[in-house]
Structures are given as structure tokens and as C-alpha cells.
């Protein structure tokens, strides 16, 4: 929360001091990302994704192979500041689990895993509206925001997620503009 407050104050009160405050941070977020580390944490990422989208009556993120997708997206499609924040966030999360529970995230109980994610969700919240947008643009998206959006995208576009979590129409063949929802209707998957 302190970081958010600090950034908020700087953005609101004096745009000029962004540089002074964040000279080090900006360097930190623009450094060459630690891809080796990222690739070595596939199991951790799979467990994190599964906590966000768990297996229920339909497959969870792990079965859908979302971990692979997250790594690919962070490597190829995520802008450098968000990329560094994601990788640093993973490292921080490992330290958090180790100091709070003396375990890895994967070894934690479901409750501990949820507590951990809750902690990072809270820290990663951006401001509403324009300040949040400016924050994301200058400082990159938070670790949790990147994790969650890549998890959702990866799940919904995976074969398991699209065909079993959502409803997938490969070749609809017709269009009906208005029809009653079916019992337990899932959202249509994208193509």
C-alpha cells in the first residue's frame, strides 16, 4: 500500500518528481529480464494459474496447459516493464511463501495459496480511472494483473478451456440473433 500511495502522490502532486523517485525503479523495470529464471518456474506458474482457475466440473488452468502460455506471453508479448515486474513478482512470491509458511507455493495448503494470492492481489491493485492508466503505462502492469490476465486468456483460448470450460463452435453454420439461454449455458469461446 505504501508504494501505491507514494506513486499516487507523485502523479497527483508533482509530475516532475517521478524521475527523482523512480530513477532506480525505472532502471530496475527496464533491465534485461531474467528469462532463465522465468522458464525454470513452470511448476510454480502452473500452481498459481490453477489457484486462479481451479479444476471444477470443467478442467482447471493446469490441465489446460496455461503455464506454457503464460511463459510464452511474458517472453514474447509483454512489454519490458511488465515483464520485469512479473519476474520480480514471482521471486518475491517465493520469498513470501518461504518466510510466511517455510514452504514453496506448491507445497502450501489451498488456504495458504489463497492467502498468498490475496496478498499479491491487494498489492497489485492499480488506481481507478486515469491515474491507474498512467501508473500502468509508466510503471508497467503489476505482477498479479499480468498473471491473472494471461491465465484467463490462456485458459479461454486453450483446447480444454475453450471446448470444456466455454462453448466452442468451430463452424456454427448459422446465426440466431436471439435465443433463450440453455440450462448451464457457457459463454461462447472465440474462434
Amino acid at each position, binding site marked *: 500500500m505504501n508504494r501505491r500511495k507514494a506513486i499516487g502522490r507523485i502523479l497527483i502532486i508533482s509530475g516532475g518528481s517521478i524521475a527523482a523517485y523512480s530513477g532506480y525503479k525505472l532502471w530496475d523495470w527496464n533491465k534485461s529480464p531474467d528469462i532463465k529464471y522465468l522458464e525454470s518456474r513452470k511448476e510454480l506458474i502452473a500452481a498459481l494459474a490453477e*489457484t*486462479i*482457475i*481451479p479444476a*471444477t466440473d*470443467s478442467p*482447471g488452468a493446469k490441465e489446460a496447459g496455461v503455464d506454457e*502460455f503464460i511463459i*510464452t*506471453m511474458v517472453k*514474447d*508479448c*509483454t*512489454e519490458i516493464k511488465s515483464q520485469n515486474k512479473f519476474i520480480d513478482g514471482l521471486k518475491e512470491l517465493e520469498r513470501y511463501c518461504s518466510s510466511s509458511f517455510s514452504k514453496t507455493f506448491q507445497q502450501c495448503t489451498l488456504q495458504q495459496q*489463497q492467502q498468498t*494470492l490475496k496478498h499479491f*492481489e491487494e498489492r497489485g491493485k492499480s488506481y481507478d480511472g486515469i491515474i491507474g492508466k498512467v501508473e500502468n503505462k509508466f510503471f508497467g502492469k503489476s505482477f498479479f*494483473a499480468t498473471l*491473472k*490476465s494471461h491465465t*484467463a*486468456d*490462456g*485458459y*479461454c*483460448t*486453450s*483446447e480444454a478451456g*475453450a471446448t470444456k*470450460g*466455454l462453448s466452442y*463452435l*468451430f*463452424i*456454427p*453454420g*448459422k*446465426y*440466431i*440473433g*436471439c*435465443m*433463450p*439461454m*440453455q440450462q448451464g*449455458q*457457457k*459463454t*461462447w*469461446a*472465440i*474462434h
Partner: protein
Amino acid sequence: MGDPKQANQNIRIPPQNTFDAIVVGSGISGGWAAKELCEKGLKTLVLERGRNIEHVKDYTTAFMHPWQFPHRLNNTLKDQEENPVQSTVYNEGSKQFFVSDKEHPYIQEKPFSWIRGYQVGGRSLTWGRQCYRLSDLDFEANLKEGIAVDWPIRYRDISPWYDYVENFVGISGKPEGLAHLPDGQFLPPMEMTCVEDYFSKKVREHFNDRIVTIGRIANLTKGWKGRGPCQFRNLCDRGCPFSGYFSSNAATLPAAAATGNMTLLPDSIVIEVIFDEQKNKATGVRVMDAHTKKITEYFARIIFLNASTVATAAILLNSVSRKFPNGLGNTSNQIGHNLMDHFLGAGAQGVFDGFNDEYYYGRRPTGIYIPRFRNINDATKRKDYVRGFGYQASGSRMEWGSQSQFNGFGTDYKKKLLTPGPWVMWMMAWGETLPYFDNRIMLDTDKKDGWGLPLVKINFEYHDNEKAMRKDVQESASEMLHQTGFKNIETFDYNILGGSAVHEMGTARMGHDPKTSVLNGFNQMHDVKNIFITDGSCMTSAASQNPSLTYMALTARACDYAVSEFKKGNL
């Protein structure tokens, strides 16, 4: 259609490289020129600077599932770096139909997105497919307002040609009886969603000056001339293996090939039009092979330039001779000027509370349309701007893409993510941009591309009329959503660059007077009578309607005129 041998059979070069007609470009207007000229019996050479795309066979991504794309249809940072312009419109499924910005640079004196598809079929493979007729409200506007020059044609001149091309293209839509957005020859309309239907009825109730109709679109709602029907996959920009929408590849080029009169040469870059001062005619074109860079000259009595608005102007400016030192047919000094595009990016959206038990089936490849309702008559006259805009809109349930940022995670989050969300109505305007002399393309005198051709320089900006209209676009959209019972209404005005509508127009305009325009009422060059130009560069004003249908009608009409002049021995 889709004959695998088509490409090879088409290469029949006659003695002395001489044809009856040459068509430069195989996109939406070039395809029509090819079809019309071939069907009228002219031996026609069609030159395309890009690679061949064989219908169906070369639609390599058409049947791929989202999970089969390495980045699930997202563009990479490398895409954004190497193709900063094209990557704003392509994705992993359609990338192959857009040029590489790196290989095909141009100079943006002011920011302008020049979206290009160098291949057989051009941008007809990836177009938006919306088809709306212009009317006399559009054709008379310049004259009445004293802006630029008068169109040399009126609606009665083009109306039968709209009928003619619509009958071949196959356009689904609903007749509405509006004088300023004339009805066409329509295939059955697509259905509205329940929220769109509700919105449409409420708009008619609350506003006596506007209507909401289903998009008029070149997707086939029934089988048509051996093509289609549309399968409602909404993957059109990958090329359609069902021929469900109109493209040169699916429709006009096969028709042209079927006559036996067409020779189609891909990988052939037209560098200039050859002009014979003695005869005061164009005699042919000089062509560079895109791979070997070998130069070949081809000759014909009629030349159609359909290279697209910017490229056609560039070819003319690059064709200099003693008589035309500023570019072929440019005594008016208008070539390259008056560049227009529709402005995009402003509108509003709102959420509807209701219809919770209703949904839809299939992926409709169009939205709904709210035709222009400003400056139609005295009652709708605006003080702050001239002309108007049309809204394209859609009302659908929020789906995972926009729902993924809900708070929380775990079982509840998952359930919410996978269940249809509230209904949202989104509306954005396509607005008319006036023809400004200073909005122009030029050729750079120093910088060259990989083929040694001068780089195109684009200088384009919007002015006060467009800015005033943008304000009204947001206010009117918001008002309509309020009046019809939507909640959480937000207006938006994204800073989308000129060119983003991919409706470049105006760089070789039609007009009555050779001193102030490039083409006459039959798209024939005032200065050089055997050159016809029927791509977007001919447009005297932009109107607010999507323009491709008008290019098609003007092309068919110009071909009819050109062939009759040819047969009379006048060309």
C-alpha cells in the same frame, strides 16, 4: 473457381507483349476491371505487385483453432517493432495478408497509417465488407457548400451500376426506404440480437430523424453464384474456404479467368506508365519483377489504374515526361492532393440491465448500422460542422475477454469468467472527412525503397470540421443510449490515426474541369484519354459510407464506357 492450375494457365504472353487492356492492381476495383474487360472480350493483362494467392488453397490459417497459434492470435513485441503500422490491424491469423513495414517503408510527415496488402486480391481479402450506397446528398454536397469541386456524376448515373455489382457481389441487408442511404439489391438480412432489436425500436420511438438497421455486408446469407453461404465463423480476414464473402479471389478473378481472356501476373511492380507524346496516349506500362528486378514493358490500348489510392497517385507522379514533368495527367496539379480517410475512434458504450435469459448462436460477421442523421435537411442542420457520420454498433453480452479483470480468483471467479455477462451496446462513428488540398502524398526526392523506387511521403491531418463532428459523435451516442435506457454510459475518443479506417480516397479526383480535376465523369483521365482510374483515388468527396461498393460500381461503369469507346476506335 479455385482451379489449382489457374495461375499457370493464366500466363499467356502474346507477341510484342501487347494486350487490349492492362489493369494495374487486383484488389477490389482491379478485380472488377479484370472481370468486366475480359467478359466484354478484351485480352486483358492484370498486374499485381504481390505474390499469388490461390483461392482456398492459400488460406493457410482458415481452419486453425485458437490454441494452434503460438501466441493465440496475439501479436508479439517483435511484430509491434517491425510492423508498427500493419500490426495495428493484423493478428496471427491474418498477418500473411499484410505487408511488412520494414520491407515497404514510407515517410509519415504527419502520422498516417498506410495499411497495405500486396498480394493477388489485395485488401479485398481483409476488407470490412460493409456496403452502402452514396446518394445525391453526397454527390451534391461539394457544389452546394462550395467545397473543393463538384462531382461530375449524380445518383441516377451510378444507381443502375450499383444494382449491377450488387447482383454479382451478393450483399445481405434490409431495405429501409431512406433517400440518403438508398436500398440495394439485397440478400436476406442477418438477425439482430435482442438488445439490438430493442435498441432499434426505442431509437425509432425517441428520435424521428434516425433509424437503426442491420449492417449491409458482402457476406452471403444464401448460396450465390456458386459461392457461400456464410458459415458465421467471423474469420473473414483469414480468407474464406466457403467463399462466404466477396473478394477478388473468390469472385471477380475466377469470372475473368473463365473467359480465357485474362493473363494474371503476380510479383509484377508497375514503376511507371509509358506515355507517347506523338499520339498523346499512354502506350503501356514499365514493370519490374519483384524478385529478379528485371524490367519488362507491356503494351495496351486501354490502361486501368487500380493500385489503390496512394499507390496509383505514386505511379502517376513517378511517370514523368516532357509534356508531364509533374506526373502523368497532372496539368491540374491535383494528383496526390485531397487525400481523405474516414475518421474513427469516437463513440460511446453502455450496459443494459435485462434480457438476462437471452443469448445468441454463431458469430455474425457484421454489427448494426445507424445511417447519417445530421445535415440531411433544414431540420437536422448543424451550426458547428457540415456533412455527417454513420455509427457502426453492436449489442452483445460481455464475454471473457472483457470480464477477466473481475476481482478475485478461484471457483467463483472461474464461474463468472465462463458465464455470459451483462449486455453491452457499443457504438463508434465513421465520419466524413473533407477534401483538403494540403492533405497529400508526394514522392521523396532522395529516399528509395528496395526496388529503387522513390518513397511515398504522406502529409495528412484532420481539421476543425472533423473535430467538431467528433464531439457531436460522442454526445449523440451518449444521448441515444440514455434515451433508450442504457446505464453506465461512457463516451470514448481514442486518438486513432488517419488511415486507420483503410478508406484512403481522393488523390486523383473526378470533376468537370480539367483545370481542377484529374478524371472526368467516366473516370477517364482528362489529359490522357486511354487511362481510367477507378480505385479510391477518384473520389471527389468521401461521404460517410464505407466506399468499396462505390469503387465497384464506378469500375463497372467506366469499363462499359471504355469498351464502347474502344470499339468505336476512340481510344
